[in-house]
């Protein structure tokens, strides 16, 4: 599904190139649940952003669902992204001015889904995450765990093939974190959603089917379960 070949990203600092990602090659198959680990500054988030097309590598080849992403134009990339990828953030990143319902609905709007269809899909999602009662609340009125649930619901509403999560439990307490991880496992097993998550926590990483350890922009180790 996803193939990175010799991907690098560096910043020019004075005369030196400062590599954030240094020649990483990585293949992810459909149905995998990959956890990326590593200390701060090892390039985890950058790698995730590159996979999610939110960031661009300076070098290397990037293939996604048989498209050469590194050759696509901004508009085509955006279309590809819209169709296949959902993103979950550590800081939830909900739109403060929109209600729970509207936040979940927004991605569908950008995909030109019809109004009636949107209604059904959002209702379905609210049901599934058991947040129907909260649909008219604003993000500020929710707890962190609830906000992240909404964030995940929003990421899943457009039925992505690939779910990217950047420390999804980083701002949550351990019980809330566990619930989110259970949800991810279920999504992966039952719905066949491919998941790539970045995490600091060994425990959360083990929910995955593969753990990749990064250090200084390189893959230090990779093990499959």
């Amino acid at each position, binding site marked *: 599904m996803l193939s990175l070949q010799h991907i690098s990203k560096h910043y020019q600092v004075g005369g030196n190139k400062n590599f954030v990602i240094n020649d990483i090659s990585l293949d992810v198959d459909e149905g995998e649940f990959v956890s990326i680990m590593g200390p701060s500054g090892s390039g985890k988030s950058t790698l995730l*952003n590159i996979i999610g097309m939110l*960031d661009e590598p300076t070098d290397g080849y990037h293939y996604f669902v048989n498209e050469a992403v590194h050759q696509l134009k901004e508009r085509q990339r*955006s279309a590809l992204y*819209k169709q296949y990828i959902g993103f979950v953030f550590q800081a939830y990143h909900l739109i403060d001015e*929109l209600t729970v319902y509207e936040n979940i609905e927004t991605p569908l709007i950008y995909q030109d889904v019809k109004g009636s269809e949107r209604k059904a899909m959002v209702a379905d999602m609210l049901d599934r995450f058991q947040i129907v009662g909260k649909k008219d609340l604003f993000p500020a009125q929710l707890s962190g765990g609830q906000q992240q649930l909404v964030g995940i619901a929003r990421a899943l509403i457009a039925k992505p093939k690939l779910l990217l999560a950047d420390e999804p439990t980083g701002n949550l307490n351990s019980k809330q974190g566990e619930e989110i991880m259970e949800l991810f496992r279920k999504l992966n097993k039952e719905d066949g959603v491919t998941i790539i998550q970045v995490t600091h926590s060994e425990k959360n990483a083990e929910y995955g089917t593969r753990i990749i350890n990064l250090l200084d922009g390189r893959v230090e180790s990779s093990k499959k379960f």
Partner: protein
Amino acid sequence: MIKNYFKTAWRNLWKNKVSSTINIVGLAIGMAACIVILLFVSYERSFDNFHGENIVRLNEVQKFPGMAASQKVGLSMFPMAPALKSEYPEVKSYTRVKWDRKYQMTYGEKKVFLSQVFAVDSAFLKIFKFNVIKGDAQSAIEKPNSIAITQETAEKLFGNEDPIGKVINHYGGDTVQFTVTAIMANSPKNSQLQFDALYSLPGIHQKWMDNWGGNWLNTYLKLAPGTDLKAFEAKMPAFLKKHLKPEQTAFYQLFYLPLKDVHANSTEIGLDYLNYQKFDQKSTNLFAIIAFIVLIIACVNFMNLSTARSADRAKEVGIRKSIGANRPQLAFQFLGETVLLSLLALILALVLVTVALPYVNNLSLRDISLPVFTKPLFLVVIVLSTILVGFISGIYPALFLSSFQPVKVLKGSVETGKNKGTLRNILVVGQFTSAVFLMIATVFVVEQLNFMQKKDPGFTREQVVTVPMDRISGKKYELFKQRLLGNTLIAGVTASQDQLGSHLDQSGATFQYKNDPKRELGVTQLIVDNDYLRLYNIKIIEGKDFSKDKSGNGREYIINESMAHELLRDHPKAGISTLIGQHFGFDSLGVITGIAKNFNFNSLHYKVENLLIANQSDWGLTIASIKIKPGQSQEALDFIKATWKSLNPDYPFEYQFLDDHFAEVYRTDNQVSKIVGILAGLAILISCLGLFGLASFSAEKRVKEIGVRKVLGASVQNIVLLLSGHFIKLVLISNLIAWPLAWYAMDLWLQDFAFHINITWGTFVFVALISVIIALATISFQSIKAAIANPVKSLRSE
């Protein structure tokens, strides 16, 4: 999608109440100013636009021998129009208009004075589209002794009776009978031609029909479509040569003005009697330009506040991009917000316009209305323009905000709000430059107007009441004067043919100094009775005033200094006293008896030109000037009125204080200055609104910095200076840019006045000071609030 955007937009507006209010109020004020000016401009453009195309007025350029400069006049001669029609195929039809003011009209016992009656040719109603309500108006202006009256006149004369077929009489020396054949609608207020009745010109004024030389009426022609005015004008010298006496041809040139230009582009034309509310389109254009600048200043607020607030929106942009929004969609969203905001501003603007219109009408003496419901086109135009304004104000913030990289803004690594400081500074400087420019202009305009009010014109204007007289009442002037002088309330009485301050025209005179060849020269003639100079305190610098009792053989002339120097042009060494006792060529009996100090007999727009004052009451006096003792004006007026009534029981008593007359002379100047002043005030207000918004934003952004500085020992003054210094610097830079522009513009404007103030640096410094004080007052609220806040609070939250 739209709904989602709308919600976000609405909730954002609500969340940032201060900046939303500033944006909406500022924009609404700017739009209201623009709409009012737009209405004014379209009212001005509407003058006589209902008559159709190809209508021109015939005008003359007169240059009588020796006149310093030629004068343009709106008058023409009786036989010109018929001759033009018969000799030139370009002329399709013509109408002359000969007017009478205060036209006495009686019906049975009822007697009224119509303010203006037109004698016209039969094509008048074909050329001008004035509405006929009832009856046969065409026959009224074709047949002698029939008349068409307006609705207002009909009500005055007949009340509820049907006027058609009734006979009314006019008495003006001898009685003329008219049969009313039609009722016309009152002249629309946006027409230069205002009349109360129409009758046939050839029918009444037959004896003048072949008089080449007398310029007593206006001529209007309907030309064939596509006529080249310049080419047609080029044929006029031959036309004059054919008809005028050879010695006259050099005195005249003819030119044409399209009807629209008669209203809007004829300031330099004198003796322009049929030109109701003539208004220079240069002023109209000036208003339009300034109003547009005010609107732009309001739009700039918008851009500034939105980009400054971009930090608040950056996160939203990042999120929306990360869940699939592309740049055009985001730009569209932000543009939608600004358009929504402008539409809200439009609603407020329309309210403001409705409130302001009565004042505008009062100031401009016009009848402007807001045609929101009556003219759908107007509504469409302003709604579309509003959307355009929203689009223009929003385009930069939209492009700026939608360009954010999601990864960067979500990590908080984009320096939003701050890195665009340069552009914001430039925009603020632009705003304040315009505002300061307008302020300086206002100060100079007001100073010039004060100067004109205060400057000693060389005669006394106070406590003088003027009473107009016509041919009949004028005959009783001597008696009127004697009776008035019998009362101690009256300090003096005199009379003249023209009123000081009304633009007096020039005519020709011949003069021969000793044995020199005869000279022809242009001169303004003022016909007065012998008390005139005494009553007006006009100084005699050589010779003596008019004698009290006229000695048998002679007429006396008093000339002004300018004239004296002109007459002695070829004898610079001769003293002006050598002119005393000299004759004029046209008068072998009368002599120059005195030389008066120059005084401003015209408005201060004009230089003091040659003036010849003659005490010839038998040449016709039309205005009595009565000087009353101070303190008892009402009693004096009552007495004058009673005296008038006892002498002229049939004639209405009218009067005007000379001061009021001069207020009228300078009315256009006053209107222009008030409108410019109001617009300048609005410009300042809107700029300050923007500054207030930016100051509150910057105080908010620097709350932590301020906390740290205070912990380190900064005083409140230090902080206020820190926060205000930047903005004050911008205002000072704006002043420096505005100064040369304002200097140039005001220098140009003052050229229009022969007597004007000088541009001094004091005004510039004064305006700079004021602008800094206003700006300080605006931002100090925010700065002081930030400076006195407890630093513990601002630091704890981090």
